[in-house]
């Protein structure tokens, strides 16, 4: 086994996988994407200059892979459903909830669904900051952003999530 692959896998695989998983919320897609990450990593490793840490570099590749994935997916959606009002249907999650989530409390399940209503940038910040517990400065490095951009995006993301959660909870309350 290639030593670069071996080392990166042992050190960061689960972090990278989890990052991608929460972005796409589909195990198979996350598997495909993580595969793509390693393909790009192995092809470009000789050009890795050590300017950033290996972890930062790896995550920046994962981030690009995810962005490309959503770009492709949106292009596809645009072609197929030109007149389809996508926003209205976003909450009806196409994916069944994974077992890890269904085992959680109701609020967590709700939050998991609401994540999809954030922008990609917001989602990435939330995952890195809260699920992966990275600091603002680490998150900034991974995303290639300034720390203030991380802070602003994080602030907006939390706000957006809060609003959505509140709306949904109110609705649920009315029904009950």
């Amino acid at each position, binding site marked *: 086994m290639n030593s670069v692959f071996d080392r990166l896998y042992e050190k960061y695989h689960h972090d990278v996988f*989890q990052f991608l998983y*929460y972005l796409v919320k589909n195990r198979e897609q996350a598997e495909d994407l993580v595969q793509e990450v390693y393909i790009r990593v192995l092809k470009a490793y000789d050009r890795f200059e050590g300017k950033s840490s290996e972890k930062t570099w790896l995550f920046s590749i994962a981030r690009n892979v995810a962005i490309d994935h959503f770009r492709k997916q949106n292009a596809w959606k645009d072609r197929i459903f030109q007149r389809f009002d996508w926003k209205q249907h976003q909450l009806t999650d196409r994916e069944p909830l994974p077992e890890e989530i269904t085992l959680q409390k109701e609020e967590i399940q709700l939050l998991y669904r609401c994540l999809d209503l954030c922008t990609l940038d917001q989602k990435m910040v939330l995952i890195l*900051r809260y699920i992966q517990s990275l600091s603002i400065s680490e998150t900034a490095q991974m995303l290639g952003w300034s720390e203030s951009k991380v802070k602003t995006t994080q602030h907006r993301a939390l706000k957006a999530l809060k609003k959505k959660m509140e709306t949904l909870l109110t609705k649920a309350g009315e029904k009950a």
Partner: protein
Amino acid sequence: MNNKNLHDEEIERLLKAMPKIKDIQKKEVLYRKVMQSITHEEKKKRIFVTPKLVVACALILIAIISLSFLKNNEISINPYNQMKEEANYDNSANNELEKNSDQMENQILLTSVLEKMSVYKDDLLENERVFVYGIPDQQFQNVIPITIVSKVSQDQSWLDRYNQIMKLLQEEEWGLFDYYPYEGNVSKIDNSTLKFAAKKTHSYGNSSIQETTLIISLMENFRGQGIKRIELFTENNPGIDFSHTGTIDQIEIHNINKNGYFLYYTDNGYQFLVPYRNMFNTIEEALTAMKSDIETHNLYSSIPKHVSFSQKDSGNLLTIQFTDPSLIEENSESMKMIEAILLTAKDFGYHQVQFTNTGLTTLGEFNLSQPIDVPIGPNRIKID
């Protein structure tokens, strides 16, 4: 949650409580998939990368010439034009450079990719031995020999360790049938004879497929260990009752099996070099057959159709002379071909193979300028 007005802190707390999600895919499987895609993309890449490289090389050339120009000519009038002329002038140098950096580009890509699938004598560290297990695929069409390399401690025999590892095999993870451990025991009678005692309740007699799989697996597993004969028992009684051939009380193990090796891909991304047990008459016949797929067995050609060669043998050494060296590229396809030929040569009794007119001096870890020893075990797999 009664309060419908949430605080930021609560959202943060919930986010932090989101469950950790782990990849359930095995590392080895992922690795193989990654490697397969990389080698698959190699060819495509080569086509697209060239125009960019031409430009890059021209620029490098200009830079080199300009440097030497500036050094050699202290009084320069208009170096830039002259440089350009020189750059255009020497086209052959340009092409040469392009070729070199094309190769460089590929090497960068390949040094991390070209891994051997089999185990060779030199791969073993001190006290390490090889353990081969023939495992049927999910359809029982092929018995796929895999090799585990493991240390054998001093107070233990090879066979003890063999029996231990047999229980650790994770066949299903490798996309194969969960076959081991045997429904029976393997023990030693003498240095060249083993005893296989099936349990009373064994299922080897249920069908002819079960029967052949057992026999082939026993042959695969012990032929590299100097074993010539295996005596078959059902508990303490000699012989095993098979549905197809009746009672058999011993099998002879041959080292020369005259198999050709083909590629087999499992559904979960593993690839193996697998013997097709057709007993070819000559190695020439086997090597020719290896250029085509064997659809009935889901086996794929291990030698590209367009590659041709002649073979010559002198004792234990087989020489394979390729007709057109430009067809042998430094990629994993060539690696698989070389290893398939080596395994086939081994099954025809050769000890070494010399590849000539390949146009390459090395391929992965192989030094093609010297005869290469045949593998001591096919399809290396690592287990925890």
